[in-house]
C-alpha cells in the first residue's frame, strides 16, 4: 500500500512543548503521525487513528544534523525507550517521543532540569534565530531611513509594502522573544518550588508577514512603475484571500472532522484555486484603479504625413488650465492627473497639453506638481531633493513681487534658464513647467492658484 502523507503549516514556537504535545495527540487521534518537522511545514504520515501520549523533550547536548545519531544521543533515546517511550523524530535538539501506555511515567520529572534544557535549546535555536531576524529588520529599516533622509519624496512615492512590513515583522519578532523570556522567568521561579509550567501558545505571526514580503518583492519588480495603490490593493486582496482561506479551513476542519477527508492534492488544488481567484481579483481591481480615467484616443497627423493615435485624458478640475493663459480655440486639451499618496507625503501631478495635428501644433503644454509634506521634519529634506539638489537642473531663487511664497527657477547651467519653476509655501512644494516663457504675472498667478488648490485624493 502506498504511504499517504499530508503537510501542514504549523506556526508553533519550538519551545512550546505543551501545545506541540497536545497538537500531536490530536493529530494521532485523527490518524496522522508526525513524520518530519520543517521550519513551518510539518509532514504527517497516515496511521490507524489511535490514542497516543506525546512527550517533547530537549536533548541537552549539541546535535549535528546529517550525522548518524551519536552514541551519546542514542543512549539518551534508549533510556527514554526503557521508560516506555518510543522515539518518533527529532528536529535538532528537540526530540519527540510517544507511548500508548497511559501510565508511563513522564520523561521529565524534575522541573529545574527541564527548564534548563528548554532554555539551552531556546537560546541557540529561538533567541539567536530571532536576533538574526531582528538585526536583519533593523538593518533594512536603517537602509530605508537613510534613503528617506536622502530622497524622501522618491522613497515615499515608490515605497512598497515592504516598507511597512519590516517594522511589523520587527514588532512580532521582538514580541515573541519577550514572550519567551517572560515565560522562562516565570517557569524558572516556579521550578525552584518544584512546579512545572506549561508553555503558552505564541504563534509565529512574523512568518505570515515574511510571505507577503516575498510576494511584495516579486510584485515590486513587475509593478514598480505602477501606482502604489495598485500594489497595495493587490497585496491587500491576496492577503485577505489567504486569511479567509485559513479561516475557512479551520472552520471546515472543525465541522467535518471525520466525514470528509481530503487528500493533500485536493487541498493544494483548492488552495491554488482560491489564491488564483484573489490574485485575479486583486490584479483586476488594481489595474482598473491604476488606469487614469476617462480617456480616449485621437488620430493625429504627423509632420511626415502619416497618422498615429494619441491619448486624450479628460481629468476634470485641474486647478490651472492652459486656457487660463492662452487661447486654445477649438483645440482639444488633454488633462492627465496622477496622485501618489502615503502617510507622510502626498503628490499630485497634472499634465496638460493640446492635442492637434502636429503640423499646425504650437505644442502648448503645462505640467505641474503639488507635493504636500505632512510630516514637517521632512520638509527641508524634500525641498533639498526637489529644488536644491535637482538631478538635472540647478536652481536659483527668483525675486517676485510678492512675499507670500518663495520662487525658484531651474537652470540648465549657470546661464541658461529653463521654463521650469518651483514654489514653496508652508508645507507645500510646487513645480511648474511651461512650454513658453511666462511673465512674472503669469508665474504669480500659477503659484497662487496652486498654493490655494485642494490636494485631495480620491480612490
Amino acid at each position, binding site marked *: 500500500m502506498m504511504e499517504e502523507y499530508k503537510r501542514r503549516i504549523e506556526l508553533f514556537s519550538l519551545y512550546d512543548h505543551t501545545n506541540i504535545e497536545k497538537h500531536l495527540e490530536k493529530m494521532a487521534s485523527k490518524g496522522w503521525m508526525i513524520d518530519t518537522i520543517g521550519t513551518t511545514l510539518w509532514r504527517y504520515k497516515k496511521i490507524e487513528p489511535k490514542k497516543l501520549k506525546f512527550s517533547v523533550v530537549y536533548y541537552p547536548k549539541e546535535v549535528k544534523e546529517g550525522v548518524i545519531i551519536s552514541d551519546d544521543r542514542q543512549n539518551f533515546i*534508549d*533510556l527514554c525507550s526503557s521508560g516506555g517511550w518510543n522515539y518518533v523524530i527529532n528536529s535538532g535538539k528537540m526530540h519527540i517521543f510517544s507511548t500508548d501506555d497511559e501510565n508511563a511515567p513522564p*520523561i*521529565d*520529572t524534575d522541573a529545574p*532540569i*527541564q527548564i*534548563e534544557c528548554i532554555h539551552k535549546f531556546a537560546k541557540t535555536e529561538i533567541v539567536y534565530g530571532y536576533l538574526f531576524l531582528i538585526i536583519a529588520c533593523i538593518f533594512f529599516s536603517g537602509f530605508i531611513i537613510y534613503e528617506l533622509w536622502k530622497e524622501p519624496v522618491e522613497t515615499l512615492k515608490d515605497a512598497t509594502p515592504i516598507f511597512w512590513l519590516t517594522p511589523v515583522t520587527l514588532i512580532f519578532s521582538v514580541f515573541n522573544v519577550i514572550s519567551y523570556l517572560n515565560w522562562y522567568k516565570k517557569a524558572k521561579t516556579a521550578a525552584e518550588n518544584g512546579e512545572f509550567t506549561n508553555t503558552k501558545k505564541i504563534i509565529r505571526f512574523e512568518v505570515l508577514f515574511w510571505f507577503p514580503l516575498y510576494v511584495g518583492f516579486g510584485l515590486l519588480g513587475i509593478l514598480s512603475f505602477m501606482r502604489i495603490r495598485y500594489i497595495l490593493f493587490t497585496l491587500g486582496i491576496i492577503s485577505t484571500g489567504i486569511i479567509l482561506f485559513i479561516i475557512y479551513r479551520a472552520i471546515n476542519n472543525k465541522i467535518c472532522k471525520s466525514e470528509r477527508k481530503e487528500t493533500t492534492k485536493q487541498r493544494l488544488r483548492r488552495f491554488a484555486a482560491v489564491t488564483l481567484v484573489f490574485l485575479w481579483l486583486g490584479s483586476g481591481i488594481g489595474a482598473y484603479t491604476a488606469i487614469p480615467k476617462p480617456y480616449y484616443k485621437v488620430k493625429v497627423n504627423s509632420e511626415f504625413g502619416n497618422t498615429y493615435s494619441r491619448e486624450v485624458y479628460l481629468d476634470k478640475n485641474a486647478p490651472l488650465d492652459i486656457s487660463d493663459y492662452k487661447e486654445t480655440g477649438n483645440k482639444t486639451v488633454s488633462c492627465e492627473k496622477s496622485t501618489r499618496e502615503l502617510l507622510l507625503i502626498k503628490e499630485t501631478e497634472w499634465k496638460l497639453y493640446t492635442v492637434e495635428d502636429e503640423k499646425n501644433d504650437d505644442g502648448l503644454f503645462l505640467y505641474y506638481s503639488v507635493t504636500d509634506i505632512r510630516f514637517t521634519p521632512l520638509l527641508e529634506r524634500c525641498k533639498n531633493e526637489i529644488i536644491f539638489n535637482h538631478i538635472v537642473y540647478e536652481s536659483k531663487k527668483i525675486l517676485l513681487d510678492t512675499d507670500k511664497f518663495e520662487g525658484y527657477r531651474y537652470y540648465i547651467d549657470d546661464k541658461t534658464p529653463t521654463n521650469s519653476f518651483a514654489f514653496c509655501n508652508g508645507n507645500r512644494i510646487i513645480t511648474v513647467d511651461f512650454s513658453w516663457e511666462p511673465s512674472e504675472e503669469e508665474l504669480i498667478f500659477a503659484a497662487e492658484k496652486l498654493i490655494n488648490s485642494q490636494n485631495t485624493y480620491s480612490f
Partner: protein
Amino acid sequence: MPRAKFQTLTEQMFYVLLCLESECCGTDIMEKIRSLTDSRVILGPGTLYNLLEQFVDEKIIVETKTEGRRRSYILTEKGRQLLENEYNRIRKQADDYEKLFREEQ
C-alpha cells in the same frame, strides 16, 4: 547546574546516588528506584539522563563500563561523602521531629 545545588539533594538525586552504591546502568536505576520505593518515587528517563551527566561532570559518580550502548556507573568517594552527608541531614531532621513530638506526648 551550579555546584551549590548539590549541597542538598532532591529526592530524585538522592535515590539515583543510593542506587549507584553498587555498579548499575541507567535502566536498572529506574527499576531499582521503583521497587525500592514501591513506586512512590518516579524518575523520568530524561531527568535521569541529565542527572547522570551532571553527576559525572561533578565527579560524584564515574562511568565504569560501556557494553554496546549500555553505560554503567558507580559512586566515587566524593559521591559517597555527599550521600552520607545527605543521610545525616535527613536523619537529623527525623531526630529533631521525634524529639519534639515525643516530648509533647
